[in-house]
């Protein structure tokens, strides 16, 4: 009988109880001790859907839309959620990619993260999006993310507005707000006002099943947050003036900067050659970018802020006229003669033919080099101080005009230009071994001076204001916030009366001087021509101007590379910009003049020379 082995029941029961214990202990560890399963369960079932805010719009000062948004779709993927059974071929077919391409993309994405969503295909075309949307349930782990791209209705102001690009790892590491595939302002205002424009991302937590079908919101949306749209910007820019400026500069290399002197508001900031900002949007962005980047004419280069090596030329004479009066070495009636130039011993500085001698006003009207050589030497050789000390005093006042330092415009990558220091010459010539004559080219704005077109415009605004300038800026107002932006006011320690004398001279420049051909009927414009000497070819044409003389509304600096003397291109362009801004139209008598400027082509000529 089996009862002989009856005690074996205890071994069997023992084995059973042992197994039960093992199960319970194991379950205790899995269910109570270990939290990782709960996290895995969450990642299985919860999807954090990012709600992308609309990026802020950008308007010009008159409410004209400069930058808007348009929707597009990104195909996203979470590698961990892809199942083996997925029909890869179908997806490849819809997206029109090869299987090898699919595999290599997945490998790259998996390397970044298996748990976080990554962009699989950027900016789906409408043709791809519709069939994909229908078949999404076939592709667990994939989902479509709606985003917005930028659109520039007027195609103007590429350098000002800038563009947005995908964030790189450096930006992600710096600011955890960004995740892979996000867009960030990469240049221009898009970059400078990134934090205002981007808004705030929102999140929606939903539950999905194994097929990635949304089953509902998680805990009635307790953890959801709405996206906050970016702030709209209203610029100081006048879109029409900007557009006109770009038209004038077509086929020329250079810049126009126009500022409202009283406020420092930038009315136009033209670079040429420019580019259509719409080119740097969407799938063709990187292709277009490299084309633009490799262009020898450097269309991406923001000359107005970054072309800092060029001397201001004769426009700088206005500054020396002001400083010399302030220092008391010249009065409005001081006269100097000029016989086709300035001579001192063996030194000679040429000048063009004009009536001689001239007083201070006349020296501006005729841009007399000899006059300013005398003036400048008077400044440096002033009794009671050494040349170095006098130079330092002179430089201190030059810098007050915003030269030699960054002005602090609300755009990235501004350069500072150059005003040479005492230290520079001490180093170059040796301490005490340079005299007023050594550096006399500074008298006529040549030599080691360097100024950006923006600085020239700002300097012009300071003269127009008779002694102060407001930091030039592009943002006029954040639309949702009350109040207009006020730039910082800088007062120049030079008496107001001295400015009046200089303004008289500048008025004469246009009436009967070097800029006479650019007279605007009905408007009293003050201006000054300049020529930046160019050892490599035709000189650069410079003109600064403001109008009207009393209570000026606009100050302009024009810089045209290889444009010859300031009267050739600088002055005509500046006069047209001013006329357009103040009168809205160009006088009939000047239409022929306008046409000649609009059609002038300095680029093909430049190319043929090389």
């Amino acid at each position: 009988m089996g009862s002989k082995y009856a005690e074996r029941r205890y071994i069997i029961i023992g084995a059973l109880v042992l197994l039960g214990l093992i199960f319970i202990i194991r379950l205790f560890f899995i269910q109570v001790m270990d939290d990782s399963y709960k996290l895995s369960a969450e990642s299985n079932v919860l999807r954090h859907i990012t709600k992308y805010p609309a990026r802020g719009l950008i308007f010009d000062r008159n409410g004209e839309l400069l930058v808007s948004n348009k929707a597009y779709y990104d195909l996203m993927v979470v590698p961990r959620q892809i199942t083996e059974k997925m029909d890869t071929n179908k997806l490849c077919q819809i997206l029109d990619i090869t299987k090898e391409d699919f595999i290599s993309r997945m490998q790259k994405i998996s390397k970044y993260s298996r748990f976080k969503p990554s962009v699989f295909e950027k900016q789906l075309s409408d043709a791809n999006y519709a069939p994909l949307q229908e078949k999404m349930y076939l592709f667990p782990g994939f989902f479509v993310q709606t985003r917005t791209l930028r659109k520039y209705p007027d195609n103007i102001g590429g350098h000002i507005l800038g563009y947005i690009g995908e964030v790189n790892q450096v930006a992600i590491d710096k600011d955890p707000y960004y995740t892979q595939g996000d867009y960030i302002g990469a240049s221009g205002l898009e970059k400078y006002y990134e934090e205002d424009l981007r808004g705030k991302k929102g999140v929606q937590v939903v539950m999905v099943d194994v097929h990635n079908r949304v089953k509902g919101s998680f805990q009635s949306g307790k953890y959801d947050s709405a996206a906050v749209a970016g702030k709209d910007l209203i610029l100081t820019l006048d879109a029409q003036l900007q557009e006109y400026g770009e038209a004038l500069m077509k086929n020329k290399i250079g810049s126009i900067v126009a500022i409202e002197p009283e406020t420092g508001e930038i009315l136009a900031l033209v670079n040429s050659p420019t580019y259509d900002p719409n080119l740097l949007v969407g799938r063709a962005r990187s292709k277009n970018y490299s084309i633009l980047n490799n262009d020898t004419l450097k269309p991406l280069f923001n000359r107005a802020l970054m072309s800092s090596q060029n001397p201001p030329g004769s426009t700088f004479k206005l500054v020396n006229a002001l400083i010399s009066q302030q220092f008391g070495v010249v009065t409005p009636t001081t006269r100097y003669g000029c016989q086709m130039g300035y001579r001192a011993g063996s030194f000679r500085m040429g000048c063009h033919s004009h009536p001689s001698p001239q007083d201070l006003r006349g020296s501006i009207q005729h841009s007399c080099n000899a006059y300013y050589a005398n003036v400048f030497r008077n400044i440096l050789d002033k009794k009671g101080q050494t040349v170095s000390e006098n130079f330092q005093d002179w430089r201190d006042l030059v810098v007050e005009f915003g030269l030699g330092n960054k002005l602090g415009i609300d755009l990235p990558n501004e350069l500072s230009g150059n005003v040479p220091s005492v230290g520079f010459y001490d180093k170059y010539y040796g301490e005490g071994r340079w005299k007023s004559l050594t550096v006399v080219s500074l008298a006529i704005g040549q030599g080691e001076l360097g100024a950006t077109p923006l600085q020239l415009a700002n300097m012009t605004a300071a003269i127009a204001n008779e002694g102060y300038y407001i930091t030039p800026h592009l943002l006029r107002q954040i639309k949702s916030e009350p109040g207009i932006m006020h730039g910082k006011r800088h007062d120049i320690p030079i008496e107001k009366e001295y400015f009046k004398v200089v303004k008289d001279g500048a008025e004469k420049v246009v009436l009967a001087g070097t800029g006479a051909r650019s007279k605007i009927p009905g408007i009293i414009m003050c201006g000054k021509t300049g020529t930046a000497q160019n050892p490599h070819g035709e000189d650069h044409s410079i003109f600064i101007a403001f109008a009207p003389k009393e209570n000026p509304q606009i100050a302009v600096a024009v810089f045209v590379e290889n444009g010859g003397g300031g009267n050739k291109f600088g002055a005509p362009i500046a006069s047209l910009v001013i006329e357009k801004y103040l009168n809205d139209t160009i006088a009939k008598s000047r239409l022929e003049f306008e046409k000649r400027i609009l059609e002038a082509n300095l680029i093909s000529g430049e190319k043929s020379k090389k």
Partner: protein
Amino acid sequence: MRQQRHIFEGIDWLMVGLYFLLVFMGWINIYAAVYNEEHQSILDLTQRYGKQLMWIGFAAAMAIVMLMIDGKFYPAFAYPIYGTIILTLILVLLFGREVAGSKSWFEVGSFRVQPAEFAKFATCLALSKYLSSLTSNMETLRTKLTAAVIIGLPALLILLQNDTGSALVYGSFLLVLYREGLPGNFLVLGLIAVIVFITTLLFNVQTMLIVLAVAGLVAYFFSNRKRNDIILIVAAFALFSGMSYSVNYVVEEVLEPHQRNRIYVLLGKADDPHGVGYNVAQSKIAIGSGGLSGKGFLNGTQTKYDFVPEQSTDFIFCTVGEEWGFLGTTMVILLFLALMIRIIFVAERQRSPFSRIYGYGVFAILFFHFAINIGMTIGLAPVIGIPLPFFSYGGSSLWGFTLLLFIYIKLDAHRLYILR
């Protein structure tokens, strides 16, 4: 001899109670596992929970019929029942319908039956009948071989149906034989064989041989160093070395890739949460996310949203783990332990060896299902597709277990009418 007055007289209400408790809990969890907002009624017959209720009704009727049949019927008809089932298993091989790779279903209209589920109780009856006969003696080779044939025949036929999981269940009868006098060495040898099997796969044949040689030398030093001992040690060494080689061969050359992968995943040699190990990984996530007291009835996200495969059948334990937590899983394990210990207790009070052996058969089958099914959901056993008794969705399996248990309850109720 007394006459039994009515069918419920003398039945063990504890086993019946545990049975209904487990079946009810199973049904509730099936409802939660396939819960569907559009079909909220638990009685909806288009849904699995509705169908399961129907199967439960059939099972209850079946249980009553089992209790109505005279207790003498089962020993008397053990062999014919066994024979019929063997014939059915052959027929299903010829005319059956293939479902999920296993040719193990009969189909009549929309109704499907899996004969393998009924082969368990039939084999149990035949084995009890044979071992309780006066001619059998566990100490003889003849009895061992005959018992092996009775167990092996259905197992082989089920293996041919490509239902490896169900075939493996028959290995559990080794426990019955052990209780009836099979030398413990067989279990020890079996255990060593399992260890050799696993270590060979974990490392390689060469390492295994070195370990075996060292073990042999150690055994030699601790033995009496008589001739018989030396022969035994050498024989054991030869046996296990041969086994190590053949395991290596079978796994690498004979098994299908998916079977080999399942073994490797279990042993931790292969790690691929989205391939073979996906089921186990998701199952552990579902159970593990339940925490101490669970997410609450119908609040399980992992099972409800289909992350766990086969959630209403083989992986029903995940729903318990996710919605009822550690308290729920412990409760279920304790209920199974209670039922199985009760079965052993009842077996030991039988006067008739037939009833006792049958009782151990019932125990062995439940034990194997319990161990493998729950073991696989928590990553302690390979994924072998066998249901959790009374819990898992499916008519055939529920009826098979019901027959198995209620024949035993009837035999127990009948015990007082049998002469010692």
